C-alpha cells in the first residue's frame, strides 16, 4: 500500500513536471514570437529618427532616451527569457529524476511470456526480408535525394576529366559545339590571303599593297570601347575588341562599308584587374579563322565567337594580375589557340581547343611577367611555339606542350614578339636580347648588344635585314646573317605599332599616324611612301583588297584606299 502511494505520488509529480514544462515551453515560445515585432519596430523607429538632423539637441536627446529605453526593454526581455529557459531546464532535469526514481524503486512488472520463445530460424528469414526491403528503401531514398539535391547537369557521377571551363550553354546563347580536325599547314596556308592575327599571317602574307601611297578615306566608323588591339580580317569582316573597367566586347565591321555588323559583349568578368591607360583592357589582338574569332581580355577571359557574333565558348584564365595589364596576343595554330599567360606570380602557356575552349595542355614557365606574344614556328611539318619572357627564350611542342629547349638569354621587360625564317628565330627587345636562335636547339646564332633595340614594336625581317623600329624614331638594320649593324635612320617620330612586310615592302605607322612604305636598301632604308593620317596610331595596320584598315587611338576605325 505504501508502495502504491509512493508510486502515485511519483506519477503525480511526473505529470506536474510535464505539465509545467509544456506550459512554460509554450509561454516562452509565445513570448519569443511576441517580442520580435516590437524590437523590429523600435529599431526601425530609431533608424528613422537618426536620419534626421541630430545637431538638434532636443532631437538628439529624444534619440538617446529612446535608444536607452528600447535597449533596456530588449535586454530585460532577453533576461526574462533566459530565466524561463533555465527554469525549463531544471524542470526537465527533475522530470528525468522522477522517471528515474520510479524505475529505481519500482522495477517494471514483468510477466513470464506466453507461448514459445522466439524462433531464431524464423527471425533469420525475416532478417533477409528486412535486408531486401532496406536495399529498396535506400535505393529509393538515393534516387529522391539525387532528384532534389543534384542539378541535372551534375548528375553524372564521374567527372574525372577536366571539364571545359565555361561553355556557350552557360552564357545563355547555346550553340552546339562541333569538333573537327584542322590541318595545321592547310590552315596556315589559308591565312596567307587574310589578315587573321597579330602582325598578319604566320606564313608570308600575300595581300597586295595599295596601288599608290596617296590615300583617301573610304570609310570610318567609331568604336564603342577603346582598345590597343589591332584589327584582324577574314574575308570581308573586320574584327576587333574593346573594353573598359566595366564592359568588354568584340566588334565586327564590314570591310567594304565600315558598317558595324554586330557587337557581342563578354560575360561579366570575375575579377577586374588594374591596368595602365597605355595598356587598357583590350590590348591583345584577336585571332580569326574561317569560322571563328578569338579574343582575350585583360580580365583573363578568352572568348570564341562565330562569324555571326554567337558566343561559342568562354573561358576564364587564372587570376590576371600583371603590372601594366595583360597585353600578349593569342596565337592561332590549327585547332589550338595558344595563350602566353605571364602573370606577376605565375607564368603559363595554355593551348586551348578552338572548338570547346578546353585546355589541351598547359605548361608552366620559369619566368617573370612579360607582355610578349607567342610566335608560331613550323619546321618539317611540325608545329612549335616560341615564347620570349624575362629570363628565357623557349620553344614548345604544339601538340604536347613539352618544352623542347630553353635559352637563358633574356631579361628586362619583354614586350616584343619574334620573327622566324629558315630555321632561325630572330628577336629584339630593349634590355632583353637582340639576335638569333637556332630552331633546332636554341643555340644563339648571333647576338647584337650594341645596337639600341625597340621596347614596344616588334622588329621585322626583310630580305637579309632585321629591322628594328624604336619608340624614339630610329630605324636600325642589322644583318640577318651575323647581327652586325648595317645602317641607322632617324625619323621624326617613334613607333609603337609593329611594322609588317606586305607586297615586298615594309609598312609601318608612327605614333603621329604617319603611314610609311619603306624599301630597305643595302646601306639605307628608302621611304617609298608617306601618308599623314593626322591621328595617333599604336595599332598594326591591316590589309584588305588593296586597302589599309587602321585603328586610331581615338577609337576610330579607318579604311584608306588609294586615290585613283
Amino acid at each position, binding site marked *: 500500500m505504501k508502495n502504491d502511494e509512493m508510486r502515485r505520488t511519483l506519477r503525480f509529480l511526473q505529470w506536474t513536471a510535464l505539465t509545467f514544462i509544456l506550459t512554460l515551453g509554450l509561454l516562452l515560445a509565445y513570448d519569443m514570437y511576441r517580442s520580435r515585432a516590437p524590437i523590429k519596430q523600435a529599431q526601425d523607429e530609431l533608424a528613422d529618427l537618426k536620419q534626421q538632423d541630430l545637431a538638434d539637441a532636443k532631437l538628439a536627446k529624444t534619440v538617446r532616451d529612446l535608444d536607452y529605453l528600447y535597449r533596456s526593454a530588449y535586454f530585460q526581455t532577453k533576461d526574462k527569457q533566459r530565466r524561463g529557459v533555465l527554469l525549463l531546464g531544471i524542470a526537465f532535469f527533475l522530470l*528525468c529524476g522522477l*522517471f528515474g526514481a520510479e524505475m529505481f524503486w519500482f522495477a517494471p512488472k514483468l510477466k513470464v511470456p506466453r507461448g514459445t520463445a522466439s524462433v531464431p530460424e524464423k527471425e533469420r528469414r525475416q*532478417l533477409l526480408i528486412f535486408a531486401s526491403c532496406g536495399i529498396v528503401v535506400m535505393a529509393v531514398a538515393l534516387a529522391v535525394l539525387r532528384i532534389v539535391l543534384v542539378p541535372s547537369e551534375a548528375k553524372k*557521377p564521374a567527372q574525372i576529366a577536366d571539364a571545359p571551363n565555361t561553355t556557350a550553354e552557360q552564357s545563355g546563347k547555346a550553340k552546339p559545339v562541333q569538333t573537327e580536325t584542322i590541318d595545321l599547314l592547310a590552315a596556315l596556308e589559308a591565312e596567307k590571303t587574310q589578315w587573321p592575327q597579330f602582325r598578319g599571317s604566320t606564313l608570308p602574307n600575300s595581300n597586295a599593297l595599295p596601288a599608290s601611297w596617296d590615300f583617301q578615306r573610304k570609310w570610318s566608323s567609331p568604336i564603342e570601347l577603346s582598345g590597343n588591339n589591332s584589327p584582324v580580317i577574314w574575308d570581308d569582316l573586320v574584327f576587333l575588341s574593346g573594353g573598359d573597367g566595366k564592359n568588354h566586347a568584340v566588334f565586327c565591321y564590314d570591310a567594304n562599308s565600315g558598317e558595324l555588323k554586330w557587337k557581342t559583349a563578354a560575360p561579366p568578368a570575375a575579377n577586374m584587374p588594374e591596368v595602365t591607360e597605355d595598356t587598357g583592357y583590350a590590348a591583345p589582338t584577336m585571332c580569326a579563322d574561317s569560322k571563328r574569332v578569338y579574343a582575350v581580355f585583360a580580365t583573363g577571359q578568352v572568348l570564341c565567337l562565330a562569324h555571326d557574333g554567337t558566343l561559342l565558348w568562354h573561358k576564364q584564365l587564372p587570376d590576371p594580375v600583371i603590372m601594366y595589364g595583360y597585353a600578349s596576343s593569342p596565337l592561332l595554330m590549327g585547332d589550338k589557340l595558344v595563350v602566353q599567360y605571364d602573370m606577376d606570380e605565375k607564368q603559363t602557356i595554355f593551348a586551348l581547343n578552338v572548338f570547346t575552349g578546353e585546355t589541351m595542355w598547359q605548361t608552366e614557365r620559369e619566368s617573370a611577367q612579360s607582355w610578349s606574344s607567342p610566335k608560331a614556328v613550323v619546321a618539317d611539318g611540325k608545329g612549335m611555339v616560341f615564347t620570349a619572357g624575362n629570363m628565357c627564350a623557349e620553344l614548345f611542342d604544339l601538340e604536347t606542350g613539352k618544352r623542347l629547349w630553353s635559352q637563358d638569354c633574356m631579361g628586362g621587360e619583354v614586350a616584343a614578339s619574334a620573327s622566324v625564317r629558315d630555321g632561325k628565330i630572330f628577336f629584339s627587345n630593349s634590355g632583353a636580347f637582340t639576335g638569333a636562335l637556332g630552331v633546332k636547339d636554341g643555340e644563339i646564332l648571333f647576338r647584337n648588344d650594341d645596337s639600341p633595340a625597340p621596347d614596344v614594336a616588334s622588329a621585322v625581317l626583310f630580305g637579309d635585314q632585321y629591322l628594328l623600329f624604336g619608340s624614339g624614331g630610329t630605324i636600325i638594320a642589322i644583318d640577318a646573317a651575323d647581327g652586325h649593324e648595317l645602317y641607322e635612320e632617324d625619323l621624326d617620330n617613334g613607333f609603337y605599332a609593329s611594322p609588317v612586310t606586305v607586297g615586298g615592302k615594309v609598312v609601318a605607322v608612327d605614333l603621329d599616324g604617319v603611314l610609311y612604305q619603306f624599301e630597305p636598301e643595302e646601306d639605307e632604308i628608302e621611304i617609298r611612301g608617306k601618308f599623314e593620317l593626322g591621328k595617333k596610331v599604336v595599332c598594326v595596320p591591316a590589309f584588305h583588297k588593296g586597302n589599309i584598315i587602321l585603328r586610331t587611338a581615338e577609337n576610330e576605325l579607318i579604311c584608306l584606299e588609294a586615290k585613283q
Partner: protein
Amino acid sequence: MTHLSVLLAAQARFPAPEFESYTLPEMSLEELASDSVLWRVLVLCVFLVVGSLCFYKWRSRKAMLAYSLAGLAVFGFIFASCPCPVGMFQNIAEGVAAGSYIQPGVLLLFAIPLAVSLFAGRVFCGGACPLGAIQELLHWKSVFVPRPLDRILRLIPVLLLLVFTVCAIFGIGFPLCYLEPYLPVFLLDFATPFAILSAVFLLVGLFISRPFCRYVCPYGVLLRFFSMFSLLKPQITSHECVNCRLCEQGCPNGAVLPPENAETAVQHRTGSRRISLLVACIPFALFAGGLFGYFSAPVLSSFHRDVRLQNELDAGIRSEAVEAFESTKTTHEELRARVVKLQNGVLLASTAAGVLFGALVMAELIAEARRRREEEVYSIDASLCFCCGRCYAACPLERKEKHHEK
C-alpha cells in the same frame, strides 16, 4: 557559460550604442574556451570507473540509474552535452582529415570511452554519455522492435558513420550536428528546427528504448566494434539460468539472446544453404555497395559550399555566396578546378565507403545467420548491451541473491 553565451548572442543582435562616450565591453571568448577539457577528462574517467563497478561488480540496476542521473546532471547540463558522441566523432574526423592540431583533451575524450570498452564494454553508453543518460531515464513503456528489424535498423549508424567520415574528410560540413537531437535540451536553446527534432526523439524515446543510441549514433558503432573484444562480458546471472525469459522481456534493447535448441537435420541443411548463399552474395553486395556509394557521390558533393556556389553560378543565381565570390580574387576556373577535384575525391571515397558498407552488411547478415552456441541459457550480446542493468533487475535469481545479501 550558458548565461554568458546568451548575453553575447543578445548583444550581437542589437546594435551597439553609437554615442561617442560609449565603449564596447571587452568580450573575452577565450575565457569561455579555456574551460578545462582535461578536467572533464578526469571526471569522465571517474564516471567510467564507477559505472564499471556498478555494472560488473555490484550488478545493480539501481546503481546504474543513479549513474545515469549523475551523468545527465554533470555531462548533460553542467558540461553542456560534453562529451558529445556526435561532436567528438566529427571533431576528430575533421581534424585528422585536415591534419590540423587536435587538443589532447578532445582526443582523450574521444579515445577513453573506446579504450574502456575494450575492458568493460559500453559502460560509457550506460550513463556517462549525456545522450544515453537522458534516453535511459526518459523511457516509459517499452515497445519492442522485432529483432530482425532491429538488426537491420542498427546498420543505419554504420551508414551514417561512413557518410559523415567522407563529409568530414572533404570538408562538406557538419551534417551530423543536425542529428544531435538532445542538444537544445542541454544548451537550453530551443531554436527550431532542432527543438522539433528533440521533441520527436524524446517522444519516441518514451516507448522505444534509446532510439538515438541504437539507430543513429555513429560513435556507438565504434563502441560496438570495440566492445566485441571486451575483457569483461556482461552476464545476466551467475546462477544456473532457469530460462524464465524475464530477462528477454526486461531488455528493450534487444541485447539478450535466447538459447537455441539443438538443430534438426532440416535446419542444418537450410542453415548451411543460407550461409552458402550469403557468402556467394558477397561480391554482389560489394559491387552494389560500391555502386550505391558511386551514385551517392553527387548528393554528398552537393552539400559542399564550393559545389553549391558553382551550381548557383551555373544557374545564374545571384546569391550572397555568388556576390561574395565575385568580390574575391578567385577565378571561375580555379573554382571549377576545385569543384572537379572535390567531386573526384568524394566519388572515390564514397565508392570505397559503399564497398565497405556492403561488406559490413554481409558480415552482419552472416553473423546473424550462424547458429548460436548450444547453451541452454540466455546470454547478452556485449556489443549491443548498453549496460543499463535491466536484465539484472529482471532476473529472479539475481533478485533473490540481492534479497539474501540484504
